């Protein structure tokens, strides 16, 4: 039962400290996280739709909007992913080794993606 006992403390209480208040939900922190994910998704979709409508004014404002939109949405997406990894995949209760295992490829993949996007898709601009 090592696993179970090990996790018992954190998983089996239905109370979560949130914004300094003790709240009690069936399923505890997992449910809260799911709520957060749902809300964030709604925000994402709505903001995307809203900004899409606004795109069609002058080109530079459109570009600016595009940039804002991209940053905003990706930011939210990353938060959501982190929530899942941190709580659902129990990274918070794992050894640091696991964190390294997951961060190293993210780093390498991230760098290579950056590079591939940086190089012009075709031609030397001649």
């Amino acid at each position, binding site marked *: 039962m090592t696993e179970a006992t090990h996790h018992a403390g954190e998983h089996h209480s239905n109370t979560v400290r949130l914004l300094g208040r003790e709240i009690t939900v069936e399923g505890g922190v*997992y449910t809260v996280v799911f709520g957060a994910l749902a809300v964030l998704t709604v925000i994402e979709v709505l903001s995307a739709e809203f900004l899409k409508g606004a795109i069609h004014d002058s080109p530079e404002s459109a570009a600016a909007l595009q940039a804002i939109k991209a940053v905003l949405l990706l930011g939210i997406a990353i938060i959501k*992913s982190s929530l899942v990894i941190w709580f659902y995949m129990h990274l918070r209760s794992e050894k640091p*080794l696991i964190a390294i295992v997951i961060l190293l490829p993210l780093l390498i993949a991230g760098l290579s993606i950056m590079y591939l996007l940086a190089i012009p898709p075709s031609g030397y601009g001649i």
Partner: protein
Amino acid sequence: MAELTANQLPAVAHDDHGHMSEEEHNNNMKLGVWLYLASEIVIFSIMIVGYIILRINEEDVVAQAHEQLGVGLVTANTFVLLASSFFMVMGLRAMQAGNRPGMLRWIGLTALGGIVFLCGQYIEYSELAHLGIVLGFDTASEWSTFGMRFYAPTFFHGAHVFVGVIWALEVMRRGAKGRYDHNPIGIEMFGLYWHFVDVVWIMLFTLIYLV
């Protein structure tokens, strides 16, 4: 005699890792799965970069595609997958609390979520096919470049969901036999995989459908 010892000692030695403490065994399994996921991250990044390059170079094609796609269906799908991820972790929680039926219920829901997601993806694909968005490149359609860069990552992800569903059913089969009553590591491993698939979708959803 030589054969005998040679054949059997390994078998004995490795039978269900008899010589390995449960703790060790669990840690190995978990580290193994994490490393596997690490390599998956890299593969998906290749798939995704293929799409982003298009996104940057052919703004309008993508914009058009977004017009056609709409986000209704896929948002619903996203919710389904998020929910299934939640069911998953609840299933593990139940098992850790020693509640086998609860576990079976939750994992069942997880598998269901996966199936619904796949159906949603199927519907979406067939709609796109109607629009003439196909995997192969043909100069005829204005989607020619969009198709492959869209299908490659999403289908690759769909395939992972499919595998996940199979795995979930297998977990249920074993769980029903009480395989995890004593040590739920099997469920936890599947959980890691399933949540990872979910995370990938969170990124794909944002990158492909929203940005």
